[in-house]
């Protein structure tokens, strides 16, 4: 008998027992839907993290004090802790000796209490330079940014992050000309930064930006830096720039042994890659758990098919008596379990699309990727064939005489 007749038979059998077919498929439906949806959520999270890191600035190299061999590896320009080995002269050296850079931004960070009138808040005060805007990919909303003039004359001017504005000036979104107090110093607000919307490991909106020279002279009283951020003009030159900067700084610090470096040059791309790996494992984990449920669904199919073989022993006997060969019976049951899995897989995919749509309305990024759909579908077909094998074989090897006698 040809395969088309077999498929016709199988679909007839599935259709004639809808309730049971539905229950059989349920495992596959849930399995496929959860695999596709979990992978979509995982990949959505991955995209989110990558985007957030890229919003910190692309082509970014961050130099922080403390050698990577001294147990002080950190992302970004976290302040203090790694010793005070970076100086403004290092930034100047990089600016003068390294080519292919689009910006060099030395900065000094410190957490301070900020007071404006009767309001006060804690924020990250950053002493920085005009390059901050380009290097940190952080545009200005209103007013003006710190310029060379401010730095040269150590002006007490400040540019506020959007969250600081909301906290300190709840009724005035553009507090240009207002005064804020950091420690014993009064600063005049000259601008407000655009919101970066970051809620990650560093809130980039809860900052107050002041000239680097003012910071070193009046706020911390130290001439050291907490980090130097460098943006490279061309992404392809990242590793060259990293090597050159390392060489320049080693020379400036009179270090000859690489293992004794007292600074760390961190590549933004490396950070993205590391976090990508982390979220990749997260996706794999979710997908893996879902795959187990798909596997369990397959066992469900096998279970029902085995019951069905016992239940239909007599039918198998009749079919054999009227000329069905082993192959025909084998194929009939195999096609039936595969058809069940395919149908279940298709319904599961449909449900995962609905789920993705619903999650999307709650602004959770769960865009379904086509490869995961194809993979889950093929996997469910495989499950159908694999778990259909045993029942089909059991049915095929029944002796017609015994099968006919079965009541």
């Amino acid at each position, binding site marked *: 008998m040809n395969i088309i007749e077999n498929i016709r038979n199988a679909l007839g059998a599935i259709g004639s027992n809808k309730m049971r077919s539905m229950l059989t498929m349920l495992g596959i439906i849930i399995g496929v839907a959860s695999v596709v949806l979990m992978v979509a959520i995982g990949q959505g999270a991955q995209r989110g993290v990558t985007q957030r890191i890229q919003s910190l600035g692309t082509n970014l190299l961050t130099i922080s004090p403390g050698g990577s061999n001294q147990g002080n590896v950190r992302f970004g320009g976290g302040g203090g802790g790694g010793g005070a080995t970076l100086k403004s002269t290092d930034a100047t050296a990089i600016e003068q000796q390294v080519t292919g850079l689009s910006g060099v931004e030395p900065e000094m960070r410190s957490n301070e209490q900020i007071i404006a009138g009767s309001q006060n808040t804690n924020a990250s005060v950053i002493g920085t330079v005009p390059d901050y805007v380009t290097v940190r990919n952080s545009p200005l909303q209103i007013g003006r940014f710190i310029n060379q003039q401010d730095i040269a004359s150590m002006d007490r001017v400040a540019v506020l992050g959007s969250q600081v504005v909301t906290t300190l000036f709840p009724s005035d979104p553009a507090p240009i000309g207002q005064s804020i107090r950091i420690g014993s110093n009064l600063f005049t607000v000259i601008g407000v930064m655009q919101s970066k919307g970051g809620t990650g490991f560093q809130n980039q909106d809860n900052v107050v930006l002041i000239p680097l020279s003012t910071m070193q002279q009046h706020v911390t009283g130290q001439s050291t830096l907490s980090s130097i951020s460098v943006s490279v003009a061309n992404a392809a030159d990242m590793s060259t720039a990293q090597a050159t900067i390392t060489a320049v700084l080693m020379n400036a610090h009179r270090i000859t042994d690489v293992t004794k470096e007292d600074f760390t040059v961190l590549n933004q791309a490396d950070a993205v890659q590391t976090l990508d790996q982390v979220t990749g494992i997260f996706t794999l984990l979710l997908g893996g758990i879902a795959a187990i449920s798909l596997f369990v669904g397959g066992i469900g199919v096998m279970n029902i098919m085995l019951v069905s073989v016992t239940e239909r022993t007599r039918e198998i006997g009749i079919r054999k008596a009227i000329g069905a060969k082993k192959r025909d019976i084998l194929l009939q049951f195999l096609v039936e379990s595969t058809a069940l899995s395919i149908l279940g897989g298709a319904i599961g995919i449909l449900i995962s699309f609905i789920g993705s749509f619903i999650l999307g309305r709650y602004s959770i990024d769960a865009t379904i990727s086509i490869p995961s759909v194809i993979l889950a579908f093929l996997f469910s077909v495989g499950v159908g064939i694999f778990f259909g094998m045993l029942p089909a074989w059991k049915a095929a090897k029944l002796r017609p005489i015994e099968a*006919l006698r079965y009541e």
Partner: protein
Amino acid sequence: MIHLRDITKAYPLGTNKLVVLKGVSLHIQPGEFVSIMGPSGSGKSTLMNIIGLLDTPTSGSYLLESKEVATLDENEQAEVRSRRIGFVFQAFNLLPRMDALRQVMQPMLYQGVHRLEAEQRAREALHTVGLGERMSHNPNELSGGQQQRVAIARALAMNPAIILADEPTGALDSKTGEEVMNIFNELNRDGKTIVMVTHEPSVAEHAQRTIHIQDGLIFRNETNEHH
């Protein structure tokens, strides 16, 4: 057409053997209508299963149309069975949830007969048994007699060498049983070879010859007078 020589059949029963057939020899000519009679446990059903290639003999020779079939393997048996033998069972043995037309087509589809031809032949066979009007009915919508006629049509459509009927009237009342037997007589008149197992003398009388079997042996072979 059918030549059985010294057929024995034994089943293992614990450490012993249960010998059901003790050496049966039998010749059936083409176009004959033979009935096999015997009390239950006499071995008539086993003999029937061996003739129908549903079971293999322990020893002996079985020539079907001059070809040795006693030693075939399961798939070869299935092949010969489906091409040369049509079955009619006491319990009808129709496939569940399948209309009459499809029932009759099924054996032909297993044989790789094209769907359209199978349908054509199935319609003819159903007309022959007088079920031309009920082709789209499922077994549970048909009476016992009608179900048995579907089974006969199913056997017939394959154009088999022999039709094997195992107690074909066993599940029917006497009036419907008579109708079914008339169909067998008609088929026989058209040249079909029919072998039928029964334990009712009135049914056995429809055949030209009755073989009586008891304790695994043929003990009487009589020709029915009225033929």
